[in-house]
């Protein structure tokens, strides 16, 4: 079984984990017809069947039970403040399945020209709030309270040593729900990871209904007719949000190094971190001239690439692949949408640039705290 742990440790490595997730993702949540075709060919649509969730639940439970036998796994997972994450993993899997399951059913109904499951005919299908809804709410309240109390009795809330501003723990971690952001710090400077990107998440979420304006397909679970939207959302929600939190909580140890779930958190573990900036690659590696002293000259390549990415790529896409969308959304909406999307994409892009080229910053102006 030792080898199983090793396998898990190996595939948990962000590079492997991320790459496989990135490859698998469009086949699980196909954004286009082409992916959908393969989605069905590969039989991935069975993921949303009843059997799948039973197997998944059993599998995850078995994994946790097996893992708890391992001291290192136990130490991380049973750390009181990490316990909610374990619960969250189960909940997210279940509810993702539940929504997809209903969506697929509705898709079939709609394909057959029928109405979705949630459809009702006013006023006959209406029900009275009293007692149906009120009662259900009351029961949920009771069960919720009972659940929280049991949790509280069973697991004491954490209290560590008294605060010591001079002695930072290694690793020092933010509350678990912010660990996705902290994980981004690996690839971005704090101003991006901590300020710009979170703000953009908020903005993107708020902007969503203004981009996806059609009131169609609301009020019931569906996938096929909102494929692209849901796929994008799922990517943000499952990969960039949940997965990063899990990585940040469970797989990041001292010095923010990667540790497999069954690996001892050894402060001595080293990772080769010889990251270089784009300007250094260009001027030193390729041109062999040494870094120019003028900041603008030094960083001009990075600036050009960035400007190109943000200013040239959107119109280019609008003319080519995303022509339909551009036409549908209009200039303003398209611009906002595409900027948000390509900003989100900077994260995986920077991840791979880092992993492949050891690239640290595309633009690096430490003089003004501007690193990108």
């Amino acid at each position, binding site marked *: 079984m030792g080898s199983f742990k090793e396998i898990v440790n190996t595939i948990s490595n962000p590079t492997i984990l991320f790459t496989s997730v990135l490859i698998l993702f469009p086949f699980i949540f196909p954004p286009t017809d082409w992916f959908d075709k393969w989605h069905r060919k590969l039989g991935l649509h069975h993921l949303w069947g009843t059997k799948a969730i039973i197997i998944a639940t059993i599998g995850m439970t078995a994994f946790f039970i097996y893992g708890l036998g391992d001291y290192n796994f136990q130490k991380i997972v049973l750390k009181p403040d990490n316990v909610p994450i374990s619960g969250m993993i189960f909940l997210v899997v279940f509810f993702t399945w539940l929504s997809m399951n209903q969506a697929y059913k509705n898709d079939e109904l709609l394909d057959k020209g029928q109405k979705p499951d949630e459809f009702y005919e006013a006023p006959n299908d209406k029900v009275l709030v009293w007692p149906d809804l009120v009662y259900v709410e009351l029961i949920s309240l009771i069960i919720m309270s009972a659940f929280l109390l049991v949790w509280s009795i069973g697991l004491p809330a954490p209290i560590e040593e008294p605060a010591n501003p001079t002695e930072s723990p290694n690793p020092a971690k933010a509350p678990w729900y912010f660990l996705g952001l902290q994980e981004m710090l690996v690839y971005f400077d704090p101003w991006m990871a901590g300020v710009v990107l979170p703000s953009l998440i908020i903005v993107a979420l708020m902007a969503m209904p203004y981009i996806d304006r059609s009131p*169609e397909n609301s*009020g019931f679970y569906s996938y096929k007719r909102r494929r692209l939207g849901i796929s994008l959302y799922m990517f943000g929600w499952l990969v960039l949000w949940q997965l990063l939190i899990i990585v940040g909580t469970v797989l990041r140890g001292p010095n923010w190094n990667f540790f497999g779930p069954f690996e001892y958190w050894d402060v001595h573990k080293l990772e080769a971190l010889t990251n270089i900036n784009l300007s250094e690659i260009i001027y030193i590696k390729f041109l062999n001239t040494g870094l120019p002293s003028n900041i603008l000259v030094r960083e001009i390549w990075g600036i050009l690439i960035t400007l190109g990415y943000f200013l040239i790529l959107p119109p280019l896409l609008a003319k080519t692949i995303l022509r339909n969308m551009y036409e549908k959304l209009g200039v303003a909406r398209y611009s906002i949408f595409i900027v948000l999307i390509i900003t989100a994409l900077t994260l995986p892009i920077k991840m791979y640039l880092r992993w492949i080229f050891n690239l640290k910053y595309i633009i690096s102006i430490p003089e003004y705290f501007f690193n990108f």
Partner: protein
Amino acid sequence: MSENNKKSFLEKAAESQVWKSIFRGGGVPRNRRQRMMSVLNSVFLHLHPVRLPKHAVKLKFTWCMGGMSFFIFLILTISGILLMFYYRPTIEYAYTDIIDLAEQVPFGIMRELHRWGAHAMVITVWLHMFRVFMTGSYKPPREFNWGVGVVLLLLTLLLSFTGYLLPWDQLAIWAITVGGNMARATPFLGSEGPGAALLAIGDINFITMASDARFILIGGRFMGEAALLRFYVLHCIGLPFIIMIFMAVHFWRVRKDGGISTPV
């Protein structure tokens, strides 16, 4: 035996003056009208419509996550008030008060309830958002309420974040330090943020360690007494006040935007 005699105790009580004075409309809700009235006439229930589409009461559809979030908020409010009796937000007492809650105080379990409740609320709010997205319920005419919801999510996280500092232990201050340090990198407003150097006249920098976003957040250059007090006030008064306003708007808009979303 006349029918009157068959009236249950509850029914008799419902006919009394006291009952009627308390519950408008009166009577045990047995028939349709009474049921409708009991919702309409209750200050707690009237944010519900009287009648709903069938799927709105189905757990499979709603997951009850919005309701749960609200319930947990209530539990947190109550347990939080109880905690305020014992907890003193100074760096001398904060830590030992928490230890005393764990070791000695009767029903010190309130602290556990509060902490785990806070974590649970973060998860239920997320899942609520997930459900709303998956049913497309953010779409017009509900786009504004979706925005309010996003704000509520943000406030939930901030409430949890501010509460995280209060035990004043290593876990707390370093979690908040990590979070707080990001404020230092705020573009223009953080002393180590890009563009901060531009906010200067001559040699005078306006954004320094002692005047940037982080300073405002933690009330000093270092994590200390001021930060604790700020977070305490935000956690107990500031943010709950704001979140209640947004919740009110959120609930109100649910009704006004046409209730629960339904397939057309």
